[in-house]
């Protein structure tokens, strides 16, 4: 059915699609409601990853023990997404497929190097988060495809800490800038693995590879963090719009990334 073209769309939670339809910006002739397909709603461990079905309600992630234990960064961002009523109906897959530059789940997916799974006709396929988000509200998902799941890699190191910060006009508004960090430390407090990402600053969430690499082997002290984050942001052209200038987004991103890394480090240090 989806092969029929642009005027056929998939609807899950509808928290993004229905407002677009109400304003007649999206005009599907046909909607395929997948929200009750049981096979697409799940949270389960899958080898070194946690797999989340596309129609899993966002609110379930807030209280699921697997998410809390294995994907603390994802658990941390959930309360920042919309409001309780929208999380009660909105789905994980819906948020990912919508690909708003400020979306928190997308930021975590890119930061941790998640994999998105979809079905196109009879075939299944996978794409990395970094390749999935290609522009504002634009993904690599073929128009005939349906997202089925997202797999987040789980860090098994004994001392893992996370940090997340975003800034917006009001809680739950779209962020002007957001930063996520996950660090693993050894028993001496040296960073052995680091993943840092920023969202809402550019058209897609970005993993700051250089920052991650530069933090390994260090204690993530504040001047070093500031230096490497500033260096990484200097090569990026932030978005400018009526909410925030490019300069503000750059400054905010540097500050928020610094805080997220510091929070992650301190959390990891305190793990026994």
């Amino acid at each position: 059915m989806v092969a029929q073209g642009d005027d056929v769309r998939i609807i899950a939670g509808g928290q993004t699609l229905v407002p677009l339809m109400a304003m007649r910006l999206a005009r599907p002739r046909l909607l395929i409601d997948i929200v009750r397909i049981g096979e697409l709603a799940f949270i389960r461990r899958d080898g070194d990853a946690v797999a989340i079905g596309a129609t899993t309600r966002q609110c379930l992630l807030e209280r699921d023990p697997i998410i809390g234990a294995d994907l603390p960064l994802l658990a941390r961002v959930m309360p920042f997404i919309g409001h309780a009523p929208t999380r009660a109906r909105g789905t994980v897959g819906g948020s990912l497929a919508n690909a708003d530059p400020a979306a928190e789940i997308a930021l975590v997916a890119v930061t941790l190097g998640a994999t998105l799974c979809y079905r196109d006709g009879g075939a299944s396929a996978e794409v990395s988060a970094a390749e999935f988000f290609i522009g504002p509200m634009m993904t690599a998902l073929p128009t005939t495809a349906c997202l089925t799941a997202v797999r987040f890699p789980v860090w098994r190191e004994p001392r893992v800490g996370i940090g997340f910060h975003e800034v917006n006009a009001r809680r739950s508004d779209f962020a002007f800038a957001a930063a996520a960090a996950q660090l693993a430390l050894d028993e001496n407090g040296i960073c052995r693995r680091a993943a840092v990402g920023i969202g809402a600053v550019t058209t897609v969430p970005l993993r700051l590879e250089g920052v991650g690499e530069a933090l390994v082997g260090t204690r993530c002290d504040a001047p070093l963090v500031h230096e490497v984050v500033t260096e990484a942001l200097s090569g990026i052209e932030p978005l400018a719009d009526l909410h925030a200038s490019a300069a503000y987004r750059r400054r905010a991103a540097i500050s928020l990334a610094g805080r997220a890394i510091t929070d992650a480090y301190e959390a990891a240090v305190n793990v026994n």
Partner: protein
Amino acid sequence: MRVELSVNGKPHVVEVESRTSLLDCLRERLLLNGAHAGCEHGVCGACTVLIDGTPMRSCLMFAVQADGYVITTIEGLSPGPGELSPVQDAFCETHGMQCGYCTPAMILTAHALLAGNPAPTRAEIVEAISGNICRCTGYAQIVEAIALAAERMRGVNRPDGADASAQAGPA
């Protein structure tokens, strides 16, 4: 399209266009006017109903998607004609409204909160209603109403002498 809806404990069968929102269906077909249109794009919360006891925006659901759920609207909360539920009564006690347009949504949301959390802190109350906009009151008396309702509901059916305030409550 034909859809069967269970609203306030009663089954209804309606024939609606597939593009009709649950909000419009409740108001225009079932004549339940308590849910209100404020923005029709999921921001203000005035259209809130309970779906299986959870507050959701009825303007963001199509009526034809709403079968199989237990739907509760404000009209389903009164115990009887001329009677008020404890939450409704608490809102009257603290005057947790002015124009009344956001009020059914606030009350349903409070109802859902207290069903799961009989002793919410002030922060939890604020968080629970943060998806509902009020343009009149400044929210203080709405929060008071919910805290008052929680306190009264905790005190119901308590043996004489038992200390209702012994549980954690709002600061």
